[in-house]
């Protein structure tokens, strides 16, 4: 159970994790409402504390070890993205504990931190820093990234002049340039034009294979089957079923057919 016993291996565990979002609509976000509520002895309680709480995750307990390829399945709003963010440490749980061992690479928005006015090279450096690489690590990988993007001299000009395909090549190359122990993905990243697609596919394959743990939220059964050996079925913020990929996918698809 204890993570310290798994030396130099990646691990990810969630213990009774609950995450809930208070919905701050106009009124309750204002200081005035909050102060009035305090001052008036609760008279305006219905106004200021009319807070709707969305329970995005309820008592989720999961444990993954090196080699686990986990598919997160469930309908929209089942809590898949929130669960990934809780795993990444972005949302710290309201109750419960999330433990992780290993460098986490959240691949939610691979264009994060792209500055249109900077050159391709500068964007690669910035993005690398955001991912937690040191300046040296980035320079070491620079050749590989440049080669992969096939952008050549374009890397010297501001990225706002890039076409969307070129932009994808750049962000994709940087996002996959180092091998993290834990990869969290919200939908499988499929990038770029047809010619680039095969290359990208190959790169993401090696990227994922190098990772100790992969957690992938996807709506595609085919992609889940291809990449994962385990599955977690989320429903209304709870783990409905988890286990072997085939059995979970089968019951998930059956359940959907019945309701459909």
């Amino acid at each position, binding site marked *: 159970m204890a993570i310290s016993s798994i030396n130099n291996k990646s691990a990810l565990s969630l213990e009774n994790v609950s995450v809930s979002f208070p919905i701050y609509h106009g009124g309750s976000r204002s200081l005035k409402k909050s102060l009035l509520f305090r001052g008036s002895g609760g008279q305006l309680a219905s106004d200021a504390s009319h807070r709707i709480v969305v329970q995005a995750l309820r008592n989720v307990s999961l444990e993954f070890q090196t080699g686990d390829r986990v598919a997160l399945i469930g309908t929209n709003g089942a809590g898949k993205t929130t669960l990934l963010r809780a795993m990444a440490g972005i949302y710290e*749980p309201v109750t419960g504990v999330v433990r992780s061992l290993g*460098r986490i690479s959240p691949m939610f928005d691979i264009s994060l931190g792209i500055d249109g006015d900077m050159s391709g090279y500068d964007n690669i450096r910035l993005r690398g*820093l955001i991912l937690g690489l040191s300046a040296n690590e980035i320079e070491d990988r620079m050749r590989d990234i440049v080669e992969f993007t096939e952008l050549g001299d374009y890397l010297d000009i501001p990225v706002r002049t890039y076409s969307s395909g070129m932009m994808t090549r750049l962000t994709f190359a940087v996002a996959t340039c180092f091998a993290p122990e834990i990869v969290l993905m919200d939908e499988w990243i499929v990038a770029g034009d047809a010619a680039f697609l095969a290359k990208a596919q190959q790169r993401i394959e090696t990227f994922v294979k190098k990772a100790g743990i992969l957690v992938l939220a996807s709506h595609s059964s085919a992609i889940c089957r291809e990449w994962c050996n385990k599955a977690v079925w989320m429903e209304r913020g709870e783990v409905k079923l988890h286990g072997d990929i085939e059995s979970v996918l089968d019951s998930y698809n059956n359940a959907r057919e019945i309701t459909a």
Partner: protein
Amino acid sequence: MAERLRTAPRGYKKRSFHVSNRLPSRQRGSHAICRIIRHMTTILDDEPHKSLRYLVTRGGTSFALAAAFSDIRNGLALWPLWLRLGWNDILQRYRRSMLGPFWLTASMAIMVISLGVLYAELFNTPIQDFLPYLCVGLLVWNLISSFLLEGGALFTGVESYIKQIRLPYSVYVFRSGWSKLIIFAHNFVIYFGILLYFGIWPGAVALLAIPGLLLVLLNGAAATLFIGMVSARFRDVPQLINSVVQIVFFVTPIMWRPELLRSRTFIADFNPFYHLLEIVRAPLLGSLPSAKSYIAVLLITSVNVVVVGAFFARFRSRISYWV
């Protein structure tokens, strides 16, 4: 059972596992709401575990001091990131303009000169006394007020970062502090211009402005962190601060000298901004700041750091929910 569940996270020690709070799912569900209210914070632990990164986030109500410290420590370690981000902020604003960030210097110089000439006339004071005083006062005030005014967008402005990747929150604070320091350095050119024009030489005492500036930066960073967090939760705080800052500007001796107060010196004495200004302004004008100002600043700094530190420790984990 519920009682036990509520207190359990408080008893947690680092890296110890308490499996005891696992309850049957029905019981857990029935107390969900109480738990949301009581367990608003989490304790977190970013520690390098051999070569691998070890990260623990958990629910709890205590002041997560260790987590707050590790946030700041990890944030400092990411200096290449915030130095670059802060520098980019400046570049972004003045990209493709000829003067670049020196537009700041130019507009500041125009303001200093026009106000200086006008007010020296109005107050009937010799311009060679008044203009340097006004110039240094405005430079430092500009730095202090930018911490207050831009604090509101500290976290709400980087929502895309906060929601996509876990970075220490202090990174955003250091980034904003660094970019404000760059702006201050650009504006500071005016000071040298004025020294040359009026042929003033402040002497070695001017070096005291450096520790003074560091204290201003420390207080500014703490204030901006506090404002950033409160503004993320309450969206009308930035507006409130805008109007307060304007009043403070007129109440603080920047455009006028504290001597004009005569018997009403309390207006300056009880103004924390006056003392913060004074420990930078006085040395740059060649005089020693009063002991009163130093004591006041040390007092302000310690209160500021303790209060903001406690606030940060308590509500740090809520920032990603608020933005």
